[in-house]
């Protein structure tokens, strides 16, 4: 399938028509829907209109943008003005946002065309995309298995060849894990690199949007487009966006690759371990030096993550109260019932569980022991990483302890599901950029991603290393 670079060059040079690219993507999306359920809504009308507009710009000699004509799927967590946005929740089933997320606006300005809103775990809470009010997503590599989550629909859309690029979001691993499970590339940028304005909030100090694509180059191009300081998001950094795709290189000579012993401990599926070890050796063969590092707080990361994320989420989800938008119960005798029943009926089990956990952890008497403590340990987690980066240039390891598991396998045990995130939680807690690039397959042909984590704002470095892996695999 043509790369994004080839697609946009083709459209800009009048060799390809946006209309053709988009109608092809739309057809594939509809065809694949019964198989993988990767979309919550498909934007036939608006996508064709946008494609026509791009073709018109090209025909009239105007600049159609650096992503001209590229069909893209956007996680249904990002607001799209005038188009239904649900967060995969009944509580927003018919919600139509009056504005678009900055990421969506940037993509559209660049000429990319949103062909559908991708399925996800409800409110981005989950690691298997089994928590959607619109049904689970199936892994195109093996439809009896989960695609990972929460950006499962985005990953599946790319893995199934419907689109070359999808936007996901990552709070505790929700881009990297599905990317790994589906055999594609996915990157979570540094916290503050990409605007959160218009992205339905789960955990404010962790959420970041990022590209999910078939190649590192594709990811670099999309990431360039969506990054940048946004006056509408006070937590975006005032830092220039480098031309990552133009500077992408296959050269890891002299690069110090850190291997945290905690990421290579017992409990990792031996097939996964084989793939990761192989990828590490590949980097070494290409000229990198391997360095042992420590991230001793790794096991505590789960507790820190879940407290911080659930506390922030319990507050972020308070606005879904049936007053101004969203589901309102038909069964309310008074205001209190309106709140309790609308939220009771509208939220699925996972959001309810996390709201309960977060509310408890912030409640009177528990704040110090839970929330404050978690934030203190979070600082120590970040310090762990910064100490490690004094000895190495990037950190690698597995994304998850095992490959894509079967649908329903972990669903009934939330704690088990949470423990799956142990390797991906560190980067968001520390605000660091992290990606997953496919590094091989298990015996059962299940994809295994290599996780690469870099220091703050060093996306070029981790993209380059990922590029080396994909080139020499």
């Amino acid at each position, binding site marked *: 399938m043509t790369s994004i670079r080839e697609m946009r060059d083709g459209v800009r040079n009048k060799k390809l028509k946006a209309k053709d690219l988009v109608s092809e993507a739309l057809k594939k999306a509809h065809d694949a829907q019964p198989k993988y359920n990767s979309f919550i809504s498909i934007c036939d009308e608006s996508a064709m209109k946008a494609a026509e507009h791009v073709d018109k710009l090209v025909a009239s000699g105007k600049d159609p943008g650096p992503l001209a004509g590229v069909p893209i799927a956007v996680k249904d967590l990002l607001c799209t003005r005038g188009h239904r946005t649900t967060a995969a929740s009944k509580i927003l089933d018919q919600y139509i946002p009056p504005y678009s997320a900055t990421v969506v606006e940037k993509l559209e300005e660049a000429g990319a065309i949103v062909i559908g809103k991708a399925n996800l775990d409800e409110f981005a809470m989950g690691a298997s995309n089994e928590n959607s009010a619109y049904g689970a997503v199936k892994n195109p590599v093996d439809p009896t298995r989960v695609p990972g989550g929460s950006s499962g629909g985005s990953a599946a859309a790319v893995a199934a060849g419907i689109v070359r690029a999808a936007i996901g979001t990552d709070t505790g691993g929700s881009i990297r894990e599905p990317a790994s499970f589906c055999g594609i590339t996915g990157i979570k940028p*540094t916290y503050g690199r990409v605007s959160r304005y218009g992205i339905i909030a789960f955990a404010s100090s962790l959420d970041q949007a990022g590209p999910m694509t078939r190649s590192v180059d594709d990811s670099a191009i999309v990431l360039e487009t969506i990054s940048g300081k946004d006056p509408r998001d006070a937590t975006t950094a005032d830092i220039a966006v480098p031309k990552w795709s133009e500077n992408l290189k296959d050269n890891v000579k002299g690069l110090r690759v850190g291997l945290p012993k905690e990421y290579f401990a017992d409990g990792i599926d031996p097939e996964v371990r084989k793939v990761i070890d192989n990828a590490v050796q590949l980097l070494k063969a290409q000229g990198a030096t391997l360095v042992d590092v420590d991230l001793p707080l790794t096991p*505590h990361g789960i507790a820190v993550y879940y407290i911080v994320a659930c506390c922030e989420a319990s507050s972020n989800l308070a606005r879904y109260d*049936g007053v101004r938008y969203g589901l309102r119960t038909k069964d309310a005798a008074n205001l209190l019932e309106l709140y*309790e029943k609308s939220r009771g009926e509208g939220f699925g089990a996972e959001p309810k569980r996390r*709201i309960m*956990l977060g509310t408890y*952890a912030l409640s009177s008497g528990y704040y110090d022991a839970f929330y404050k403590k978690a934030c*203190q340990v979070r600082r*120590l987690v970040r310090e762990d990483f910064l100490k490690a980066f004094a000895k190495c240039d990037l950190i690698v390891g597995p994304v998850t302890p095992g490959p894509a598991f079967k649908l329903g396998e972990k669903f009934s045990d939330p704690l088990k599901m949470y423990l799956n995130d142990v390797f991906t939680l560190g980067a968001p807690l520390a605000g660091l950029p992290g990606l997953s690039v496919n590094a091989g397959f298990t015996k059962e042909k299940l994809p295994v991603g290599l996780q690469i984590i870099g220091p703050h704002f060093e996306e070029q470095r981790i993209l380059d290393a990922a590029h080396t892996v994909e080139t020499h695999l």
Partner: protein
Amino acid sequence: MISEETIKHIAKLARLALTPEEVTLYSKQLAGILDHVGELAKVNTEGVVPLVTPTDMAIAVREDVVVPFKGDSEDWAVENAPDKSGNLYKVPAVL
């Protein structure tokens, strides 16, 4: 175990109507999760300043300039409202 009493209190604070089954389920599940979380107490955090925003950056502020929001229609604010009266949101009374 977290008492069902506590679960009901938390559900009240969070304005979540729970079925009796949910109360029992969350009572067990939250207890399990919180046990795990309780391990945090073992980490020495004396003198450690809590971290909220993980990337070091200065706050961005706006100048005091009015920029009206342009929705797709005059009544965009109530477009998604389950119940309204004119351009106002309508809710049942408190009691």
